[in-house]
């Protein structure tokens, strides 16, 4: 039986394909970080099914559904991509690939990149063969990104790059970096910037991990010492870097918000945690204040999930999110922080462990996740910077 509505027919064909090709173990809820596939030359698969699922999805172009087929995508319309998304959700399929390349660099290359750049980089991103990291921040240029000092001096057909990037998430496990560099005069803050793609295996690149308060070291300092980068790795024009970098940030914020919601789905609900630590098996929680706070976070999460869904639909309909992405990022991350704090509070003394005996692995995780979450309102732009953006660009308030 097949419908006469082309959309419905397309949906049916997707459904059949997914049923046939998504391994059953990839239809279970995601567990911890080991269930995320990030790809790249140093990427690891926790199971053969993870690899199979990525390969099959990539072969159909479904890791990047709206990208043109010649760049490794599936060439779907936004509406069709929406159907794919719905069907993936309906079957409970895991994302086959997590990737800054997919979420941020890809859309930017499609918009600003040259043909050769697209052909070279996009298919590798779509297959998860190359992992990218983001080199924007520097010791003296955090919130004030236009202050980057890393220089890229043109010498013949190469840029010679020297300087230091910092807070580069996952640089140590990435293959390439997209970064903001100064190609022009120091005095011209925004105008003198370029958006450059750098192969991290180039001579002169030195990556050193930085330790976080959570004890982890996912991010790094990256030093460039006269690193030679072919001139064809500059995206757009030399002075266009700021515009390109900002466009990428809009994609980044939308994705951060979207990912922010996925942990809520995969982790234990707050009330389950509350029951365990308060020792109340059933019925109404006796601590009315805690109960109210749990409900508040739960409800806010529903609100936030709706806002994210709204935004995703807008993007899929081909509308840019623009500065509205700042509101999305800000509220999603602050909610996540409140959620992590409440979890630690609910766990009481059991939420205070660092390592060793006396605490379960989950409890140690809970504590470290809480510490990690303090970065949520800093990374991807601080909440204050997003409030500035909303005030100026969404609300039009004067400077």
């Amino acid at each position, binding site marked *: 039986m097949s419908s006469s509505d082309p959309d419905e027919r397309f949906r049916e064909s997707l459904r059949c394909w997914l049923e046939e090709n998504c391994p059953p173990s990839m239809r279970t809820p995601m567990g911890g970080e080991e269930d995320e596939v990030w790809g790249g030359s140093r990427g690891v698969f926790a199971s053969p099914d993870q690899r199979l699922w990525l390969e099959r999805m990539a072969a159909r172009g479904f890791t990047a559904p709206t990208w043109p087929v010649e760049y490794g995508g599936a060439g779907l319309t936004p509406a069709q991509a*929406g159907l794919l998304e719905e069907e993936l959700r309906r079957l409970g399929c895991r994302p086959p690939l997590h990737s800054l390349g997919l979420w941020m660099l890809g859309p930017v290359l499609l918009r600003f990149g040259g043909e050769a750049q697209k052909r070279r980089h996009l298919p590798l991103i779509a297959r998860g063969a190359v992992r990218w990291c983001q080199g924007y921040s520097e010791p003296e240029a955090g919130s004030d990104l236009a202050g980057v000092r890393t220089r890229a001096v043109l010498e013949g057909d190469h840029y010679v790059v020297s300087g230091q990037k910092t807070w580069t998430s996952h640089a140590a496990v990435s293959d390439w970096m997209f970064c903001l560099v100064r190609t022009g005069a120091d005095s011209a803050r925004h105008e003198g910037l370029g958006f450059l793609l750098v192969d991290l295996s180039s001579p002169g690149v030195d990556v050193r991990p930085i330790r976080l308060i959570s004890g982890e070291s996912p991010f790094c300092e990256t030093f460039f010492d006269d690193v030679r980068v072919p001139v064809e790795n500059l995206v757009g024009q030399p002075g266009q870097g700021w515009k390109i970098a900002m466009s990428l940030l809009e994609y980044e914020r939308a994705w951060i918000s979207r990912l922010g919601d996925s942990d809520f789905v995969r982790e234990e609900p707050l*009330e389950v945690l*509350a*029951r365990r630590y308060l020792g109340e098996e059933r019925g*109404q*929680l006796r601590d009315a204040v805690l*109960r*109210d706070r*749990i*409900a*508040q976070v*739960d*409800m*806010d999460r*529903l*609100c*936030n999930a*709706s*806002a994210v*869904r*709204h935004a995703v*639909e*807008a993007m899929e*309909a081909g509308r840019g999110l623009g500065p*509205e992405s700042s*509101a999305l990022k*800000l*509220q999603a991350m602050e909610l996540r922080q409140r959620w992590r704090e409440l979890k630690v509070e609910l766990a009481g003394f059991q939420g205070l462990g660092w390592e060793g005996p006396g605490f379960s692995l989950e409890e140690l995780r809970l504590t470290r996740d809480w510490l990690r979450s303090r970065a949520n309102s800093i990374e991807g732009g601080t909440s*204050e910077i*997003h*409030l*500035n953006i*909303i*005030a*100026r660009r*969404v*609300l*039009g*308030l*004067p*400077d």
Partner: protein
Amino acid sequence: MGLLETTEQESLRETARRFVRERMPLSHLRQLRDSGSPDGMSRDTWRELAALGLAGITIPVSHGGMGLGWTELGIVLEECGRTLAPTPMMSTGVLGTSALMLGGTSSQLRSWLRPIASGEKLLAVAHDEGSRHAPYNVETRANLGPDGYRLQGEKVLVLDGHVADALVVVARTSGSPGEREGLTLFLVPAQAPGLQVTRTLLVDSRNAARVRLDEVLATPEDILGTLDRGAEVLDPLLDRARVALSAEMLGGLSEAFERTLTQLKTRRQFGVPIGSFQALKHRAARMHCEVSLSRAIVTEALHAIDEDRSNVPLLASAAKARASDTFLHVANEAIQLHGGMGVTDACDIGLFLKRARVAAMTFGDGAFHRDHFARLRGY
């Protein structure tokens, strides 16, 4: 179905907005308030609104309505909320109509839906009794005698009770206050002997009444839904009312926020627009986030009703809590950012704070809904 507005919905919004702006701007509410109008509303304006099809948006076409969904109803309510338009939209278009559609017999539908859609008849729902919203705390009794049911009790905050042609009264036919079982809904004509309706003047000039039922006679034909199982109608009815009121509040809070933005851009102190101060910018930006969250959850809840999703009760609570808290927050901030002018009666912004307070308490405020939500989720 997507959350983005379709072109049909956009044009409905345009129609509603234009009508409300022209025929029921804020000055309309002020005029009714200051002239001591006995009804607190204009029936002529309501009929004009009905003539556009807006009184019977969700009423099936076969009964004279537009046969549209809750998403569309929400759009119109939002526009009405922008000017605090004194219409029987909530009482009749939402509560009365839903009560009928959820529990009405075919003869009840036949006699009421068409005149509602044309703007001729108004309905009200009488449920709350105490000083807070508490759906099952019903003491009003309906005792079965030889000639039918005798209703005895008192109701508060009956929206538009004083102008309604009939009241849907929630009464107890068995059980005791607080219990879900034992409730029954009766459709009682306004002129029924023993029914005493007193208009109350609320802080926000919203039209409501107290109702006293003294041996009011009702027959089994007047029952909406099933005897003793009225909660099966009342629960979805209240969820719909919560979502609808949230949509109305969304209009009010958006308007209050936008007026505040204008103030921030135009009012000058220290030689600059006050909106250039970062302390105020950040407050405005935080409000913007809350406003967008309210919009997202209200839209989601409206869609959920249209799609008959099982999570409507959860979404309804989340929407009502978010809209209530946001409206109060935005209205308080709005007054503060308007400065001294903000606390004068001449300035419109205060009207929004008053509406926020009343709307928040109606059908449960944030605290009520966090409790309700927790209960639904079993904790």
